[in-house]
């Protein structure tokens, strides 16, 4: 005799005949994703780990298995500390100034004005993200060109009476990589924050107005608290994505002058593909994964994501 609970379980699971069908469904629905994940995520990591324990270099020949590459990472590579310091400035600066703060300002500003104008401005800010990175950086190169023809120099010289053209790529390279990345990065925060702001019930703003709040008080007491989750998410997500992305920097400054704008990910690239130290590049890349995981966990802890992800006990309308 089956109990009611058993019957319910059977009811929910379906009957015995469908076991085979469930297996087929598993293969059909999850198979492609699993293949792709293994092929493009698991296998590369395994290869990376393997390569990092070899002396693979330009000759593409492995003569020995060694932990030499890790000794380099932790002991002998003196440039690495400078690279990590720069990466911190780059990631933190881009996040703090653009991806979160500026994204937030854009979202608040474009939702406060008329819908049509708001959408227009958000569209404008999305343009660089939609254009190919090479094209985007080409425009930047024109803008900061150290000659009199450069856009910024034209403005400075003709409108502000500057005497000689500036070479921003040499004099302010770190600021440039932060700004060029930030202009693109801000759009993601903008979109996520805009959606979150839109979902705040209007009656809360009415209540705040009745209670005596002005525009800034409404932003501080209603909008920002409601954005806690999106802000945490954007911060963690963008930290990780900034840690590993380097294409704009490579295109704009090539990591130079010298190593001045070589962030960690770009350093990996330069070591592996410019100097041909594939083994060392692999070890560096693996260390970057470790850094990424640590940063993500710290962020998770710092923002108390666990609590934020809990489901509310009572539906709030």
């Amino acid at each position, binding site marked *: 005799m089956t109990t009611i609970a058993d019957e319910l379980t059977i009811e929910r699971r379906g009957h015995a005949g469908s076991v085979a069908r469930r297996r087929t469904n598993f293969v059909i629905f999850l198979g492609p994703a699993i293949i792709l994940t293994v092929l493009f995520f698991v296998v590369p990591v395994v290869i990376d780990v393997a390569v990092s324990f070899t002396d693979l270099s330009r000759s593409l020949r492995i003569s020995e298995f060694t932990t030499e590459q890790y000794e380099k990472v932790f002991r002998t590579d003196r440039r690495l500390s400078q690279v990590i310091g720069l990466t911190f400035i780059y990631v933190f600066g881009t996040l703090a100034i653009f991806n979160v703060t500026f994204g937030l300002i854009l979202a608040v500003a474009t939702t406060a004005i008329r819908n049509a104008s708001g959408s227009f401005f958000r569209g404008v800010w999305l343009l660089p993200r939609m254009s190919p990175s090479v094209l985007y950086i080409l425009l930047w190169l024109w803008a900061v060109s150290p000659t009199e023809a450069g856009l910024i120099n034209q403005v400075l010289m003709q409108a502000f009476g500057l005497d000689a053209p500036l070479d921003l790529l040499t004099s302010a390279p770190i600021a440039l990589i932060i700004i060029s990345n930030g202009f693109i990065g801000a759009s993601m925060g903008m979109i996520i924050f805009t959606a979150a702001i839109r979902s705040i*019930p209007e*009656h*809360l703003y*009415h*209540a*705040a107005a*009745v209670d005596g709040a002005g525009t800034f008080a409404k932003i501080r007491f209603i909008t920002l608290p409601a954005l*806690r989750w999106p802000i945490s998410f954007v911060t963690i997500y963008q930290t990780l994505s900034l840690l590993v992305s380097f294409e704009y920097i490579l295109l704009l400054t090539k990591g130079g002058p010298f190593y001045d704008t070589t962030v960690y990910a770009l350093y990996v690239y330069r070591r592996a593909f410019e100097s041909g130290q594939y083994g060392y590049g692999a070890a560096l890349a693996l260390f970057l994964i470790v850094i990424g995981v640590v940063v993500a966990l710290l962020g998770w802890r710092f923002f108390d994501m666990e609590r934020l992800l809990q489901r509310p006990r009572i539906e709030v*309308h």
Partner: protein
Amino acid sequence: MAKIEFRNVVKRFGAVEVIPDLNLVIEDGEFVALLGPSGCGKSTSLFMLAGIYVPSGGELLFDGHVVNEVETRDRNVGVVFQSYALYPHMSVRDNILFPLRFKKTPRDEALARVTAAADLVRVAELLDRRPSELSGGQQQRVALARALVKEPQLLLLDEPLSNLDASLRLSMRTEIKSLHAQLGVTTVLVTHDQIEATTMADRIICMRAGRIEQVGTPDDLYLRPSSLFVAGFIGSPPINLVAGEAEDGMVTVNGARFPVEGASGSLTVGLRPEHLRIGDTGFAGRIAQIEPMGREILYVVETGMGAVRVLEQGSSAGHSTGEQVKIGFLSENSLVFETERQKLIAGAHVREPV
């Protein structure tokens, strides 16, 4: 406390005129209800009082001062929203404290006032909770405390009971009414529920399509509804309204004929179910349906003038479906309206047919 006055107030949203011309005076300390179906402009009027909407024309006065352009935050009104609109990330204490933040109330005094307000609506033991940890009734009380803590000159209640269950609604009704009696603050209640309006308010403003249909005490609206709309809106179960033609002191409604006094032409006769009784005299009919309602029984009777609802006292049905009965009523309880203009004809009555 404030005396409120609408003078030829107009409100348009784009091309849509929601309120064409509103004139109304609410006395200092009065409890009035804006009653009407959805879309009648009652919430729009409330939002204009709160300053959330700005009138498109006319003048809105608080104590004789035009406040059309006065911002919400400078009006010192307390509002309880239909959804309560409690700040979800703040504790109950911070929610109630919130209005005092902007009044630069010293911290000690502010906290004392929060405690007093919480005591008043009996949520003192909930001060450290979040709104999501409260039941609907508790959220409602907190919303009331937040509206009252700043000692508003005007209290606005937007459908405050519509999200509560039936028994809670009953007790909140009593509590809001006694709070008003205690504090004496001018209060405007917006509701589509005639029972809420008649039980709580001193005066009811019945609205329809942006216009006032009738202003009066609950008794006025019930006993002397000025129009067919008000007659149909007030009273539960709804009034029986039947249209007919009057000639030579007799009104013919479908197949039934009644003596009528004080009116002629196209008339609509209104008979409330609770004023009808099944007895030995009156017009004949056959009971089509019986709906026991506990203390009362609602009979739907097929008569010569159509289906008529009759509400009888008593818990057990004294009659059965299909039974032939006679329905009588007292002449003074009958209402007679002009069908064309939909207006009540004062002093006109119909009598039971003999």
